[in-house]
């Protein structure tokens, strides 16, 4: 299990590949890996966005992310999880978050991956400030969309 924040650019697919190669405990036992990568778009709420700052609450972030993964592991038979969230200054197309879940079977991997993303959105202490053509704005809420 690896959970944390990254202060520098994420290469999500390389991270997952490397993690799976170096963590062989569940090799041969997993049949399913569901993953999700969130990426910064160049528009939001109908406006062009040229940059974003991701602020977080150090310490509380790690604690909440670990809680979220523990909840998913309690509810679904999963074998391993990789979860990394960016903080700092981002540009459009930069990855924001990656989660990968290994499980023996498909359904548990999908369900746990989605649950982690949902809980993260509502409980992990991150805040986004977008840079627009004119000035900046705090993202006020995450819709369920």
């Amino acid at each position, binding site marked *: 299990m690896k959970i944390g924040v990254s202060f520098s650019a994420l290469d999500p697919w390389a991270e997952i590949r490397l993690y799976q190669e170096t963590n062989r405990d569940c090799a041969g036992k997993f049949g399913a890996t569901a993953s999700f990568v*969130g*990426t910064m778009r160049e528009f939001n709420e109908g406006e062009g966005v040229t940059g974003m700052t*991701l*602020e*977080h*609450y150090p*310490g*509380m972030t790690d*604690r909440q992310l670990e809680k979220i993964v523990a909840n998913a592991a309690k509810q679904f038979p999963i074998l391993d999880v990789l979860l990394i*969230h960016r903080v700092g200054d981002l540009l459009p197309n930069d990855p*924001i*978050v990656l989660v990968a879940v290994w499980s023996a079977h498909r359904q548990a991997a999908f369900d746990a991956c989605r649950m982690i*993303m949902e809980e*993260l*959105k*509502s*409980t*992990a*202490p*991150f*805040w*986004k*400030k977008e840079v627009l053509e004119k000035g900046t704005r*705090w*993202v*006020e*809420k*995450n*819709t369920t*969309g």
Partner: protein
Amino acid sequence: MAIRVRFFASLRERMGYAEKSLPAEGLATVKDVLDRLDRDRILNAQVLYAVNMEYAQPDTPVKDGDEVAFFPPVTGGVR
């Protein structure tokens, strides 16, 4: 010791500072901490509370040495 108060994101900007140390005397709950600060300014928009990095409520107890944080609804992940 004292109680360490922290603000994040838009609330930090609204307050004009990121943290403050309050003497713990007379502070028994998160609500007491709020009352000791500029309560109206903090509650001007939706605010969440944390005590020692766990989500808290106005009646959550606080004591000397605790860290109390106030911040807007979180917006991590992606939509």
